């Protein structure tokens, strides 16, 4: 049994310590907002926060999570998260939407450390998140919009 705190709730999970956090979230805890896209940290669809830091859950073994607090799209909250989600909705960023949980988690991570990101900052933080529908222009605009609303 491994202990895992997800969105503020403690869970006990029966899974091999090598199991990626992604599959524990999706298959053991039914937190399906976190998406599987590639399994090799190339697309960012599985992005969650570990103690507030954006990480790829497909490459995070649950045995390595330890005491760290896991936050998923279902549980993310606070001023920055609200600003990001509001901007995403206001600009109708989503198309298929499948990558957007990960995009939003990465964007929240960026704005938490860099309140006024430049375009280069956005490229740096978001280049690991693939959107096959190509919504990048609106993602960029939404991040700037969220930054403005937080200023």
């Amino acid at each position, binding site marked *: 049994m491994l202990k895992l705190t997800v969105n503020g709730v403690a869970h006990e999970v029966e899974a091999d310590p090598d199991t990626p956090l992604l599959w524990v979230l999706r298959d053991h805890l039914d937190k399906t907002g976190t998406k599987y896209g590639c399994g090799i940290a190339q697309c960012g669809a599985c992005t969650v926060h570990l103690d507030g830091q954006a990480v790829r859950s497909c490459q995070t073994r649950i045995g390595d999570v330890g005491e760290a607090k896991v936050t998923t799209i279902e549980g993310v909250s606070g001023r920055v998260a609200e600003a990001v989600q509001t901007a995403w909705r206001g600009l109708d*960023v989503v198309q298929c939407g499948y990558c957007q949980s990960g995009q939003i988690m990465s964007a929240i991570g960026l704005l938490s450390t860099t309140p006024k990101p430049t375009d280069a900052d956005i490229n740096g933080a978001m280049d690991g998140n693939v959107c096959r529908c190509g919504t990048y222009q609106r993602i960029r605009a939404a991040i700037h919009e969220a930054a403005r609303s937080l200023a």
Partner: protein
Amino acid sequence: MLKLHDLPAAPAPSRRAFLGGTAAAIVIGFSVGSGKSLRAAPLPDLSGVPAKPNAFVRIASDDTVTVIIKHLDMGQGNTTGLATILADELDADWSRVRTAFAPADANLYANALMGPIQGTGGSTAIANSWFQLRKTGAAARAMLVSAAADRWKVPASEITVEAGVVRHAASNRQARFGELAEAAAALPVPAEPKLKDPSQWRLIGTKVARVDSAAKTDGTAIYSLDIRRPGQVMAVVAHSPRFGGTVGRVDDKAARAVPGVLDVVTIPTGVAVIAKDTWSAMKGREALVVAWDDAGAETRSSDAILAEYRETAKRPGLVASTKGDAAGAIKGAAKVLEAEFSFPYLAHASMEPLNATIERAADGSYDVFAGCQLQTVEQAVIAAHLGVTTDKVRLHTQWAGGSFGRRATPGADYLAEAASIMRATGGKAPVHLVWTREDDMAGGYYRPTVYHKLKAGLDAKGAITGWTHTMVGKSILIGSPFEAMMVKNGIDSTTVEGASDTPYALPAYHFEVHNGREGVPVLWWRSVGHTHTAHAMEVFIDELAHAAGADPVAFRLGLLGGAPRLSGVLKLAAEKAGWGAAKDGFGKGRGLGVSAHESFGSYVAMVADVSAEEAKVKVNRIVAAVDVGIAVNPDVIRAQVEGAVGFALSSVLRNRITLKGGVVQERNFDTYEPTRMSEMPVVEVHIMPSTTAPTGIGEPGVPVLAPAVSNAIFAATGQRLRSLPLDLSGLRGV
């Protein structure tokens, strides 16, 4: 819930005669253009379709209006657009409008542009629904008005409707939709309800917010991969590494020993490992030992297939269209240009890999949860694989995490596989089949690899004298259930669309096609044949313009006298991009390129601003102009064109699926890398005002990107990069 009418509990058993277990279960006909592509013929007049309030709208006592969506929404935003059309004619309160995906029922939900088939594709969702949903909304509105008139004993003509409220001003009475729905449902459906004058539209043409934005930004939107049925098990399948390979010997001892693995079964497409959870199933598959039988497999490399195409192109092919003596006209020309283009296989690489869940009900019927795109075909194929009649198969269409055509296989490949596993496991537990990214990318059904060879002549004044054009590519439709209606004289309209029906006024032309015969499964990929024909046509016409010493925009316009809508977007894009003025201000290594193309009845032109240096290209900005008829939701239209640029750019710059010895080499995003944030150009979209019935925009933004970029690279460097993906290694600095 009070409803205008209930949806039918189960789809009517309309088609039973299937060939058990085979893909070709059903014969399908697109109703358009007798064997020609959608763009070859004007869209048919669909204004005669009947109103169907029973099928498309439910009004509850709490005043919510639920619009039933018969199409798959794979991100293109049709759910919002379809609901908008109906709600506007109904005069519903938009804040109370909800949507729900329709069950499979071709009688109620056929795509009017696909004959008897319920399905989504060819950018037809809005186009085929326009009159149907307007009339349905208007009919439901008339029924609510009649119900109020009866209740209040006043003439219906004195009643007005606004934002979900029915009012009789003279007697100062009003009622909400929910209060009238039950009485309205009992009334006859008016055959020819009066449609609004466009001046009365309140939602159509405005920025109605997407209905799916909230759920897709807080993790609550449910995709097929998120389906969790009680007691469900997860399955992954080991497929042959070569197309056409079959299962030989299986040693599943180690796989069965993996914790969490429940069963291993051999099915027609491979060996399925069934486990309690996805990770265990994947680990189990890793431990599986399978010897594959390659007797019937495709073992060639993609290079060898393309080399064979080049040879094939030297022989006479099937004549797709011809006019005058093109070869003779070229022979006598003052200047002759030749070009060849090759295009690789492309994977759709939707963000959500293919997957589906099938659950057996106590009565022996089945529920299927998936991103269903060709419901009528899928229902039939699943039923055939499960050995039941179609009425025993209920489809539950989910939000799809992309598709770009991949979910619409004529043989419903991955759904058939899920059904095979369900049957092999005896229906004990709901089975969720998951294709990993690697399965999805190596699983075939690619945009065909295609070879184009072109030749044209210019006279002394720079006018085109003749044009010959040979294409070689594997047909998508031959051998599919669509063949009978969409392949004529061996010519697949989806191979030649956008070329053999060119809108350019060529004095003489000759288009030929050869059908490739390799064993690699091919499929429509966002804009289908236009993905390659538009590139070959629009790059070659640009070459001719330069050879003629003409401005590329003016040269095109001179040939587009018979295509006013295409000319219109071309002029608009050029004007908005500052064509002429802007490029004069560029230094070396930066250029503007233009392209214009019609697909699926929609017209798009793009001007690309590109910087090019040694072995490197950066697309700075794209200015697009589109004519899609009436713009139902201008913001969604803009989003589709922005997205088309982001989607297509990686296929311009780098994406290709290659086979070595028949084995697909690219298996994940590391070797088949989609466009990333830092590469995304600024995209500006201009929409042509129109009063024509709307067409689609899911696909038409894609074909014009590659030629605009290629033409811009020529403007920047003087070097022509023709084949896709662009071979930047040959690009010299300037």
